[in-house]
């Protein structure tokens, strides 16, 4: 059964904006479409940037990847600002109640000293990796082409700042707000042998100029490996050894990674399918950064988990790339 309220119907003159109609036909458009497609300026730029006089303000040549239409990078999550913040607000609400529960019941007291040491040594320094990911994605936003891709990179960048802040909060929970654990973790990030490869890799990404290469290195290669090692393998190890409560504090990262993978997979697939040249370029970048990342992560993975941990993570990465049509 349904009831029907009679409203005045006025015939519209048009269904949507002309650029949306040209892409999708003369029919009502979604909010994602109207907020995303062809919003960025594309031509007749007035002045060349003083900070990069050989380029235009918007310039496709800031990456070697070539796309006929940068709006091919449709976000499968269809995130525009409104849907993005509402999705993250839901995730943070769940995280907030977990953190509150954890703190109220003082679950940190149930963690053994070994577990606490493990978290300080292996988890907390990742806040600096997340900070790097923030910069790398915001770099893509400023340098990149087409709102479909640049907005998704900014959402990713802000997510990473949020994750760095959650990791810092874990530290404050462990040390009772003295910040000692954060200081220790930073010391490890700066000096400990197991972190130097990764820190050097982060610094290298931050001076890499091609923004799509940076996105490949950070979002595709390094993130896939780190999220598997830490939020899957280390998580399982903690759970098996009686520190399963920690998962309450890292569930946000796990949920985020699932969500983010949908977008990342689509980006890889679209870029690969565009042309043989793109595919070759992506494979070249992926091989390069896969090698660097594996070398950087090896000591950490071995100490944190075991000799085979890195191999398992690399297998996850290879499967992911294969699924996107790469290396086959």
């Amino acid at each position: 059964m349904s009831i029907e309220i009679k409203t005045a119907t006025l015939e519209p003159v048009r269904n949507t904006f002309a650029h949306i109609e040209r892409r999708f036909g003369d029919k009502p458009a979604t909010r994602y479409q109207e907020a995303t497609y062809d919003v960025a300026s594309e031509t007749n730029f007035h002045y060349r940037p003083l900070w990069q006089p050989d380029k235009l303000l918007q310039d496709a040549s800031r990456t070697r990847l070539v796309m006929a239409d940068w709006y091919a990078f449709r976000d499968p999550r269809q995130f525009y600002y409104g849907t993005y913040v509402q999705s993250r607000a839901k995730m943070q609400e769940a995280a907030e109640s977990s953190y509150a529960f954890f703190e109220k019941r003082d679950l940190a007291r149930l963690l053994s000293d070994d577990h606490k040491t493990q978290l300080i040594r292996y988890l907390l320094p990742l806040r600096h990796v997340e900070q790097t990911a923030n910069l790398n994605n915001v770099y893509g936003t400023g340098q990149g082409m087409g709102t479909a891709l640049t907005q998704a990179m900014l959402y990713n960048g802000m997510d990473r700042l949020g994750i760095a802040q959650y990791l810092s909060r874990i530290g404050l929970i462990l040390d009772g707000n003295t910040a000692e654990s954060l200081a220790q973790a930073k010391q490890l990030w700066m000096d400990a042998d197991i972190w130097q490869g990764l820190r050097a890799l982060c610094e290298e990404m931050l001076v890499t100029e091609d923004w799509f290469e940076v996105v490949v290195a950070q979002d595709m290669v390094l993130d896939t490996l780190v999220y598997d090692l830490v939020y899957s393998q280390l998580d399982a190890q903690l759970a098996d050894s009686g520190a399963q409560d920690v998962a309450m504090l890292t569930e946000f990262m796990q949920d985020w990674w699932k969500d983010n993978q949908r977008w990342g997979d689509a980006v890889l697939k679209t870029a690969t399918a565009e042309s043989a040249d793109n595919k070759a370029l992506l494979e070249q970048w992926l091989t390069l950064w896969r090698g660097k990342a594996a070398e950087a992560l090896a000591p950490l993975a071995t100490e944190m988990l075991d000799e085979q941990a890195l191999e398992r993570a690399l297998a996850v990465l290879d499967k992911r790339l294969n699924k996107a049509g790469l290396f086959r």
Partner: protein
Amino acid sequence: MAKKLNIKEKYRLLTRDLDWEFSYQDRKKAFPYEEFEGIKITDWSKWEDPFRLTMDSYWKYQAEKEKKLYAIFDAFQQNNGHLNVSDPRYVNALKVFLTGVSPLEYQAYQGFAHVGRQFGGVGARVACQMQAIDELRHVQTQIHAMSHYNKYFDGLQEFSHMHDRVWYLSVPKSFFNDARAAGPFEFMIAIGFSFEYVLTNLLFVPFMSGAAHNGDMATVTFGFSAQSDEARHMTLGLEVIKFLLEQHEDNVPIVQKWIDKWFWRGTRLLTIVAMMMDYMLPNKVMSWKEAWEVYFEEAGGALFKDLARYGIRMPKYSDVIEKEKEHLSHQAWWTFYTHGHAAGFHTWIPTDEELDWLSEKYPDTFDKYYRPRWELAKELEAKGERFYTSGLPQLCQTCQIPMLFTEMDNPGEICYRDHVHEGERYHFCSDGCHDIFVDEPEKYVQAWLPVHQILQGNCGGPGVEEVLSEYYRMNLGVDNMDMKGSPDEKRWKQWKGVA
């Protein structure tokens, strides 16, 4: 018991402490644009965070605002909210907004993302990143607010295409291109300080107040929803200028030069707001002159008194700007009225009531200089001879506005300035624009001046009509010309059941 952390300390640990000293690469290579402008930053740690918002709170607050905002948009569309506007002429202010202002929000999004990556200090960077994502919010919510109007009125449908091409839209576009093409610190003084902190009450607010006074629920709800974002942006603008001035005394003359430039550039850009407030709003909010006095002369004056202790003075040509408030809107609307065939919106003669309002608000200038023009236009219109100017106007090389401004002490005489650079003569609307050019000629010779481009054959043709209909994609006689007899007006009468 866990120790209590105050907000400042907590924010430092959660955000500011994320940076580290590089060991494997030259940090200057990661942040390469900090030095070429001559600004000296001795210590980024002195940056005072203008707001201490962590991402979890940001998501939470912003999602609550979005939920409410989109509920209103849905209701507005479902109930044909466009029928509640005061008068169909009002929608033309929205056409100006969507083609001229919303794309600037987009450029702000790009510009803040750029500086949000490039500043070496993490506090400043994160504040800029938050502004970047807010600006993205603004452009997208504006598109969604106006999406419904686009379905029922002409002239909004090609906003993005038009922004990149149309003659008068190169004024706002080049303004923001100029800021984005500058170094990161000049961008912050241009947009963060001059534009967001000082001039936002004269751009954003008049449009939103106009919406409130004219029954436009979608736009005014967006305006309310964006208020707390704008407040954050203003505090960032203020922190930037204080930070730069406190970091090194050598920064003072550089910042002063940028203030001089960007206030002049800003007031030129605001011409279109002046015209919108005085002529395009059927229900008036206040006159442009009144807005200028309240928001610039009083509020801005107090601000510059505060900044005097750093050695900063009022922007150059403030005296000229003070005189312009009496003339700007009248000279601009007359130009659009007479070029109404080349605009992307409708123009009209003010009603008798509106002419009286203008006489009252501008007792020293309107009756003397401008009312007689409108009385003449009325006579011609009554005879069926509605007047349009043929021919292309000359544009100012800096602000790109047609040469429509007069000498402020002699409103009968158009103001022309010129300058020869490398054997080529360039033309300007004012001393302010002339000086900006002379300081950076290599930049401004690059300007994509729409009229030059048409004359060089870069915008299609051969005639102006083809340029307008094919290159600009305007529906001639539908999107533009006089409001009287337009399809917008006809439909409105149908909806309202009046003959």
